[in-house]
């Protein structure tokens, strides 16, 4: 076991972990959460390119700081590399992606196919979303599908996993082993329905939830209080969404253009009053993390730092939520390193071996 990290398959980083009793997936995120450790997840900004290196480079900045990476499915209805594609690349490199599935673009036939494909690639976590309306994105002329909604999507994947059947009742030979997630937004009306909606998602199959950006901690606290009273936090891991705001101007723009993000005036005033707004935005995220991590029932945070991904490591580090724990990190295996060291000279030494020389040395 020397040199092997925790939660890593001994035969290869890309292989699913050994199944554990009570776990529905063979992934790292579920292990971290079920061990009771404070989990950190983040979001990979999907590239507008066909170059795999773009994905790897964007994932690299999170190395050793996060437990799972969300592969977003055309968030905000903007076209990017697909979540299935990103997951295919990330699983190859041993990362633990959370495959987001939005109901906006695919009907139930395509979705169930993607679930099987994703699980076969080693995706252990799937996040079921309804998806933003197409009017919000860069292709407002697209046809909105919305064949399923997030709730029936959760139920569909749960049926596939637990009953080994498609929605139609047809049997699967190998059911997908996935840890099911959903999104919550406690910051949008109807506020008193939101906790019950979390309950509905749990009933439909959600095992963990990630919240929308939290900028209003008292509101989140009220929501969590209600969720605790209803017993939901025992049935489901709640990850609070946090992230840095680049400036007061960005905050205002987000407030008026991105649906579902609630930013109180106090936050904008605080940013406006700062010398370095970007730094203040980061500090604000850290302050919010320090507040929400103390709320009972919060099992982790979901750091969304759109176009400020390089800050994720700093935010996680400075807030100290990991308490010294280091999440899985992609690193070269010791034996591979040894072989590489020994053979390194062949890349640099210019040895010209001719047949006649070889014959001489052989004798």
């Amino acid at each position, binding site marked *: 076991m020397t040199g092997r990290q925790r939660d890593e398959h001994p035969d290869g980083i890309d292989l699913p972990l050994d199944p554990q009793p009570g776990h529905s997936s063979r992934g790292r995120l579920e292990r971290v959460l079920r061990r009771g450790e404070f989990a950190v997840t983040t979001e990979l900004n999907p590239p507008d390119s066909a170059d795999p290196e773009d994905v790897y480079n964007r994932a690299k900045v999170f190395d050793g700081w996060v437990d799972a990476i969300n592969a977003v499915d055309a968030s905000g209805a903007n076209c990017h590399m697909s979540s299935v594609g990103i997951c295919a690349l990330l699983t190859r490199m041993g990362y633990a992606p959370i495959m987001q599935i939005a109901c906006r673009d695919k009907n139930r036939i395509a979705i169930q196919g993607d679930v099987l494909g994703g699980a076969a690639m080693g995706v252990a976590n799937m996040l079921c979303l309804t998806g933003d309306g197409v009017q919000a994105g*860069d292709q407002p002329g697209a046809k909105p599908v919305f*064949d*399923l909604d997030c709730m*029936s999507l959760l139920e569909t994947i749960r049926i596939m996993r637990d009953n080994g059947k498609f929605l139609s009742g047809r049997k699967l030979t190998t059911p997908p082993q996935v840890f099911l997630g959903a999104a919550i*937004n406690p910051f*949008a009306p109807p506020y008193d*329905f939101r906790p019950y909606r979390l309950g509905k998602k749990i009933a439909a199959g959600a095992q963990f939830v990630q919240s929308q950006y939290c900028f209003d901690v008292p509101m989140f606290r009220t929501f969590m209080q209600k969720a605790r009273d209803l017993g939901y936090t025992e049935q489901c891991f709640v990850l609070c969404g946090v992230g840095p705001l680049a400036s007061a101007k960005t905050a205002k723009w987000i407030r008026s*253009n991105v*649906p*579902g993000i609630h930013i109180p005036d106090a936050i904008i005033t605080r940013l406006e009053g700062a010398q370095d707004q970007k730094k203040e935005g980061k500090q604000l995220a850290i302050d919010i993390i320090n507040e929400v991590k103390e709320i009972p029932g919060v099992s982790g945070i979901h750091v969304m730092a759109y176009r400020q991904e390089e800050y994720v490591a700093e935010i996680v580090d400075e807030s100290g939520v990991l308490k010294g724990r280091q999440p899985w990190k992609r690193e070269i295996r010791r034996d591979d390193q040894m072989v590489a060291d020994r053979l390194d000279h062949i890349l640099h030494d210019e040895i010209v071996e001719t047949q006649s020389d070889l014959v001489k040395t052989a004798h």
Partner: protein
Amino acid sequence: MSDTQPISTTAAGPANGVQVVPPAASGGVTQATVVSRTAPKTAYKPADVSPQRRVQRSYSVRLWAVRHSRALEWFYARFADIFLMLHPLWNRIGYGRVEAPVTFVEKRVKGFMFDCRMCGQCVLSSTGMSCPMNCPKQLRNGPCGGVRANGNCEVEPDMPCVWVKAWEGSRNMVHGDAILNVQKPVDQSLRETSAWLRVTAQTAAAREAAKAQVSA
């Protein structure tokens, strides 16, 4: 090359064989804004609302129905009983034969009252008498995360969110907690069929099955 270029039917007007690709958005504007700005200007500029909103101009009757959800719940229960009582009649005439006229009436009545979309699997009693098919995302299990702070829809800014209204309506109803049940996905093959007849036939079948069990 064929000269039958498809004519664009977008707001951008006819494509004329030249594909206009809008420039990339710079900071501060969404790509959607750029797309609509680069659309060629013509004399005819349709109102900047969703296609559904163009068909439907007012929500007052729908909102009235939500405000009176309790009364409508009571009325709907009686109405379902009457329909069930008429089951032998429907059976005698044949469900297939009454389908067309009943669907015609159902579509008009529910269309007027609830802006019904004839999904054929009515869940009004579980959704506070607010038809979930009017949601632009056709969500049947609760509001999405995009509801505006004023309780209006993300997609149609001047329409009150169907699910905000559903929650309000359900709070007035006797069996309002049915809103907490997880609904199955819509069976699209049942669209434009009568939910009234389906529920009646199903209830009658269930009643007969129960009766058969008791006598057996």
